[in-house]
């Protein structure tokens, strides 16, 4: 169990430039945003923290929100509570639905959107949702920066490709008029459902035709389950979909889930996932 420690070195940069130069001088300094992921499994009286920490949540430059007609930009330290307050009129509603499924208001007042994306060992609840929405993120390090789409930041095993010296500073979420947006946690049972399977589906229709369709499962570890072939096959179909098409998609999807994540999902979860897709597809145009 960790004890009271004066040996933890806490840095409190005054600006983003200070933070970037601190990371250059001391690459092993770890970032502490809301701290709710860092602390969440540590229930000792004194939490065990890494020896060098940079506290970043107070930096105004990382809390900015900027909206244009085409996208909304969120600083990495915007809290989940703040995004929830802005609401589904301004921000894609599916993101708001996902945020409301995380912890409780006193957790969301600390938790940041950047911290949700940057957890190394798990793809947390917002990652698949933001990925589906084609979110791009700005990554900065001293002397350089790059923009990358979330799709490119994860490999097939779900590993995150953000280097230890990079800081995720901003996210840019395109604003598209999705007619259907749905997020749902599929609880594994009566125990805590914090890391249970989650479903996210978005779709657009125009005059009875499906013009875009995307869906993804996440939250149970590193791997995200998304099958772009099934998605592409559905686009340009008439909605509501026919019963026999729904059954065929259900079968394809179940086979895909069983093949891609055989040990990760229980048979109950595979069944729930299939039903979720079927329900979402059946709701389109209905």
């Amino acid at each position, binding site marked *: 169990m*960790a004890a*009271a*420690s*004066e040996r*933890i070195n*806490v840095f*409190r940069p005054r600006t983003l430039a200070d933070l970037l130069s601190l990371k250059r001088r001391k690459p092993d300094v770890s970032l*502490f945003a*809301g*701290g*709710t992921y860092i*602390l*969440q*499994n*540590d*229930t*000792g*009286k*004194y*939490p*065990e*923290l890494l020896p060098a*920490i940079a*506290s970043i*949540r*107070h930096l105004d430059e990382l809390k900015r929100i900027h909206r244009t007609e085409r996208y909304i930009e969120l600083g990495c330290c915007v809290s989940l*509570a703040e995004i929830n307050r802005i609401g589904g009129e301004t921000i894609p509603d599916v993101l708001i639905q996902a945020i409301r499924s995380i*912890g*409780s*208001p*006193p*957790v969301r*007042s*600390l938790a940041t959107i950047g911290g949700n994306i940057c957890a190394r060992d798990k793809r947390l609840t917002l990652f698949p949702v933001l990925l589906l929405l084609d979110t791009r993120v700005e990554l900065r390090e001293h002397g350089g920066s790059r923009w990358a789409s979330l799709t490119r930041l994860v490999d097939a095993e779900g590993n995150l490709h953000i280097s230890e010296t990079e800081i995720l500073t901003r996210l840019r979420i395109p604003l598209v008029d999705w007619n259907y947006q749905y997020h749902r946690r599929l609880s594994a049972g009566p125990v805590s459902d914090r890391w249970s399977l989650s479903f996210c589906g978005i779709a657009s229709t125009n005059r009875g035709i499906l013009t875009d369709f995307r869906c993804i499962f996440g939250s149970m570890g590193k791997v995200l389950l998304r099958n772009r072939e099934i998605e592409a096959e559905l686009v340009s179909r008439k909605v509501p979909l026919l019963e026999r098409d729904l059954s065929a998609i259900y079968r394809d999807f179940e086979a895909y889930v069983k093949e891609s994540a055989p040990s990760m999902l229980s048979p109950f979860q595979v069944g729930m996932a299939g039903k979720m897709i079927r329900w979402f597809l059946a709701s389109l145009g209905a």
Partner: protein
Amino acid sequence: MTVSFLLNGKSVSLDVPPNKRLVDVLREDFHLEGARPGCYAGECGACTVFVNGELTHSCLVPVFAAQDTDIITYEGLADTQEMKYILAGFDAVHYHPCANCRQSRLLTAYALLTTHPVPERREIDAFFSGHRCGCSSMGELYTAIEQAVDMRRRSGRHGRR
């Protein structure tokens, strides 16, 4: 390390290990015992305080992260008129949360009623979703909150809705 913040309206500073949790700092260094350590995991809600105007689980805040924040505990609001209505509402319907949760629930009720003067049940649910309770029902809580709203209404201080 030295950490400074506003505590119930007063500037305070203390030398403290950076990984001490805010809930323990409030209790052990400032003798403010309204916030209590329960689960240390952000789940029970017993440690709730306001940080920069937002309800926050103080067990999830290592004290270094409280630097320059504005913290209000139950004790800072106990004498306000709004808290008196809440207390009277709770008493009138014999809603008595356990000793571990009492003050944090009163604080949450305060946050609820200052932002939603006449709250709907789903708003009560949302605000209290940060409290885990094994001893009372949501029905009792709804009645207590509705009673507090009623007390305020009868005193002539109507909500804004």
